């Protein structure tokens, strides 16, 4: 589904990704772990298509299509969802208005009929309820005044509404207490665990992986995947730290 080959990317002329390769098949969950500053969020942004990041080498294919050729909104319509480490506050734009326009833009791009206001509202309410988010929060401006945990939960509500095929979730677990972590973990499994979908989970901690069991775990350090393994690698990292692995 996702094929990253020898990806190089820089920001402001500073190389961050230095030859990163990763293959993700449908039905799989991959965890990416690594020290601060390794380039994990950069990977997410580059996959999402943020303009400030310049790709200087390598290829990325999503279902055989050249992802790097697409604009950010086209990547979303192609089925990519990026869960932000720091979801952005947008004063004056309500969650509902934003998500309805976003979903219908995606649907139009795929040649599907846009959802009516009533159909959309039903979908949004159901997804909010499944993630334990008060439906009133859907009417509020995007992430404004939300706590760290509420923002992350809102990311998952958005993912539920947009129903992507590939989710790249950047530290969705940070800022969550143990109850919220379980709800978010259940949400990821419910929305994304399917034979035709895949997840790349960027995380610092083993604890999210107790809820969303990865098929593969990779260590990202200094812009490259330096080690890959099964779920046991996450436990090893937790015990021994990145230093031992990278050495």
């Amino acid at each position: 589904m996702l094929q990253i080959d020898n990806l190089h990317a820089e920001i402001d002329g500073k190389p961050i990704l230095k030859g990163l390769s990763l293959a993700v098949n449908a039905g799989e969950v991959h965890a990416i772990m690594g020290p601060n500053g390794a380039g994990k969020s950069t990977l997410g942004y580059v996959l999402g298509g943020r303009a400030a990041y310049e790709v200087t080498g390598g290829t990325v294919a999503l279902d055989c299509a050249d992802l790097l050729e697409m604009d950010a909104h086209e990547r979303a319509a192609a089925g990519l969802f990026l869960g932000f480490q720091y979801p952005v506050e947008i004063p004056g734009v309500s969650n509902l208005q934003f998500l309805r326009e976003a979903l219908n833009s995606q649907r139009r791009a795929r040649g599907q009929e846009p959802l009516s206001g009533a159909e959309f509202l039903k979908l949004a309410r159901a997804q909010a309820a499944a993630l334990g988010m008060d439906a009133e929060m859907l009417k509020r401006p995007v992430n404004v005044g939300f706590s760290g945990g509420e923002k992350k939960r809102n990311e998952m509500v958005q993912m539920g509404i947009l129903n992507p095929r590939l989710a790249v979730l950047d530290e969705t677990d940070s800022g969550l207490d143990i109850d919220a972590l379980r709800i978010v973990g259940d949400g990821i499994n419910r929305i994304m665990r399917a034979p035709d979908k895949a997840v790349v989970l960027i995380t610092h901690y083993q604890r999210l992986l107790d809820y969303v069991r990865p098929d593969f775990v990779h260590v990202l350090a200094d812009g490259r995947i330096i080690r890959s393994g099964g779920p046991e690698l996450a436990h090893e990292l937790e015990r021994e730290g990145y230093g031992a692995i990278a050495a």
Partner: protein
Amino acid sequence: MTQLPTNRMEAWRWTDLAALEAARATVRGGVPAIEGLWIEGDGPRLVFRDGEFQLDLSTPGEVSIEPIAPVTAHPLGSATAGTGWRLTLDAERAVTGIQIVHVATGNENHLPGLIELGRDAVASVVETFVGNGWTNRLTTIRLAEGARLMRSVRLLQASGFVSLREEAEIGQAASLASVFLGAGGASSRVDGELVVAGDGGFAEMGGALLTRGEQRQECAVTVRHAALDGASRQIWRAVAADRSAVSLAARVDVARGAQKTDGEQSLRGLLLHRTATVNLKPELEIFADDVKCAHGATVGELDRQALFYLQSRGLPEGPAKAMLTRAFVADAIDRIGEDAVREAFAADAEAWLSEAL
């Protein structure tokens, strides 16, 4: 008419006087359609074409057409003397939903308006400007004790220049709430002087000016607090695309005796392109010591992080920018209290956004 101002005068340095001159040099031509401009409601409706009242297109109700001799020293406002429109309401009367459409077909036209509300009287007036040429207006407003006037004005002329001068005297506990939207292709100057003359009076003059191409729009507004316990709001939003410019000059004067004045002045500009300009000139002159005057003046571009967030969820660049710009402009347009009027103005802003972005 009297001498036109020049850009060498401080109060007129940002005015697009070249556009004014070019507009008045045009010849009268086609008459734009106006049917789509009416907002739902059964209040009085008036149409002026090139400053002349169109009886056959109007149901003026309480509004009369008569000679008006404005008392003003304003260089453009004083050019309007002649026949104009007048709304005079006795105490406790209410006439809402008045709509006035001004159609210009070229060259220049001048028209005075007069609104006098008696004690506790209530009125709402919506004015819409369409067409081409130089359109010049003076509106004189006198509000007696407890009177309330809601005023919403939209500048939708396709080209040319629109100059508005507002002069208001607000009596004890009276309230003037006015919102201006510049969302056409004409350059403009929205010029006003509001005097809070009675204790507890409220004065609001704000709005959104949206420009693109080579267009220039500006507001130049002064609120004078001359009495106790007054409040005022000047909430202006400027959006400039291409090589256009918006200038916001807003001033609050608080006289020595005007204690407990509560003023708010918020001037914010948004540049949609690096080649555009927003000038801000906030001024406060306060001679009383027990006064609250919140003020802020900022110019910026669209938040790139917010833009990427919206795009990453599937919105193309244009709609994503429009969504953020709409939110920016809403601060000003949401001040309109009447739902149908607010929705109509929001739709005009929306139409502008979909063309500009």
